[in-house]
């Protein structure tokens, strides 16, 4: 219980910390307005006079993209922070308290995400509502937000793993770049993967990226219990696999830790 309280406290402190500069938080969230505006014009032109494509209406697609953008723009990007901390040795200074480093990062980046998700969804949602009409109903919101938890965890594991690559490579920026493009294409951030040919859809579904992006976004516009449970199962499996890999990598990495300075 005290263990749980510890990480909860870290979560709360980081949550407060993210509010230190509300103007900056708001300013950064404005990006979603630009993206949604561009997406709406693009997809309007794509749909033309079509009522529906790949089983989705224009309204569905735009609201799908709004949620996908919310996930993308709010996901914690701490890979380079971890990488820097590993490289210059400052990771050591995060280890001098009785907590688990990975769980500490989990709690801290969780606290960092909350207001960003809310602000992005609020701003993006308001604009999209004005542009293409009302959002999906309550079930869509509930299922999507529940699925975003699993999505957040998958992203956390992958980002932390990329950060820990700094133990072996000098620079992790290329991996971050590849990861982001994977989310864009195979995650279904630019285009819902329903639009892909069958074989590419199968490939995308077999990889973790779609479960952190397409999964929640599709549930948002098509809230179905079956799909929800299937997604949860996929997410649980990926979190278990990636979380295990992360724990092992961290243990191996920390032994090799060589701290500069002294």
């Amino acid at each position, binding site marked *: 219980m005290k263990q749980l309280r510890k990480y909860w406290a870290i979560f709360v402190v980081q949550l407060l910390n993210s509010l230190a500069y509300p103007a900056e938080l708001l300013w950064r969230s404005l990006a979603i307005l630009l993206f949604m505006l561009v997406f709406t014009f693009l997809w309007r032109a794509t749909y033309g006079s079509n009522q529906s494509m790949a089983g989705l209406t224009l309204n569905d697609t735009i609201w799908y993209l709004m949620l996908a953008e919310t996930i993308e723009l709010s996901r914690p990007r701490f890979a380079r922070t971890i990488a820097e901390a590993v490289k210059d040795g400052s990771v050591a200074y995060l280890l001098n*308290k*009785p907590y688990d480093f990975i769980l500490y990062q989990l709690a801290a980046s969780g606290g960092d995400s909350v207001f960003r998700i809310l602000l992005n969804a609020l701003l993006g949602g308001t604009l999209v509502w004005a542009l293409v009409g009302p959002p999906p109903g309550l079930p869509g919101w509930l299922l999507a937000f529940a699925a975003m938890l699993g999505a957040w965890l998958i992203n956390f594991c992958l980002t932390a793993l990329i950060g820990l690559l700094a133990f072996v490579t000098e620079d992790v920026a290329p991996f971050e770049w590849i990861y982001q493009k994977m989310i864009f294409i195979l995650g279904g951030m630019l285009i819902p993967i329903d639009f892909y040919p069958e074989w590419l859809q199968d490939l995308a579904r077999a990889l973790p990226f779609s479960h952190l992006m397409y999964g929640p976004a599709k549930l948002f516009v098509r809230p179905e219990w079956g799909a929800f449970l299937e997604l949860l199962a996929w997410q649980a499996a990926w979190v278990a696999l990636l979380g295990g890999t992360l724990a092992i990598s961290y243990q191996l990495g920390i032994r090799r830790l060589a701290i500069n*300075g002294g």
Partner: protein
Amino acid sequence: MPVIQVANLNKTFRSKQKTAGLRGSLRALVRPRYNTIGAVRDLSFEMDAGELLGFIGPNGAGKSTTIKILTGILYPTSGEANVLGFVPWKQRRQLAYRIGTVFGQRPQLWYHLPAMDTFTLFGKIYELDDGEVKRRIGLLAEAFEIQDLLETPVRKLSLGQRMRCEVAASLIHKPKLLLLDEPSIGLDVVGKQLLRDTIRNMSQAEGVGVLLTSHDAGDLEALCSRVIIINHGQVVYQDKVSNLKRNYLTRKEVGVRYAAQVPPGFCVDGAEVVKAGQYGVKLHFDTRRTPVDAIMSRIAEQGSVVDITISDPSLEEVISRIYARVEAGSSHDAADKSSRRGR
């Protein structure tokens, strides 16, 4: 029983070597060459419970590396260490409940939040009861004179205020041992004094052992009862501070400004004139041979004094003298020495 026991501790770092230019880069890519640096070399020492031990040496001497090994955040290459009955790098988390750490150059307080938030968070991290934490914060706030600072975001505090909060934060969980890495770095004279006084008082009141690294001789004089000087990762001197003072901190430098011009051939009995200008002179003297008051009166006899400063030799000077003495008496081979200079 000692709270810290270190025996034959070694830590070497491997760093990639690269010659300049594109060719060098390519060669390093194909066949990387590594340079091994011994940051800590065969270090052995002990520290008793409640002791105030100063660990000093120039930059790169291995002070911080040793502290990092003792807190368990760095694995040694070889050797043994025991801190409060734990092997630090094997039992880091158990040890973390019992020690407090401050790294002067790496703040642990949340920068944008009031110190109070970090204090409360640390209470949770160390798994203390809320009531206990509250009482403890009250006590520490009074001891460190930070009552009025607790609600201010840390970024708005002065460095001195922040360091007092940092050290107070490291004492939240009543540790038995405090490891302070350069706590006084960057502080002004008043800030240093206040911090030293508080650390000493807290140590006496709660029986906390303090291991403190510094490259400021003042920290030693004001705070520590015993000193270990290390250089190139090795102990070059360890003794009581009173002995160190008697043996090494006896040389003083005096700067004097007179109202009238200094006559040519100016001299003061018992002191050596290092520099003489039109109105000012700089003197060196040894307090063992000539007492301070004697020098002062002789200086005053020479004319009307406008300004005077007396300063201690810098720690670097003291260390180099100690080191020169060690070097002269030891049997280090020449190759060993040159490799160290090469760093």
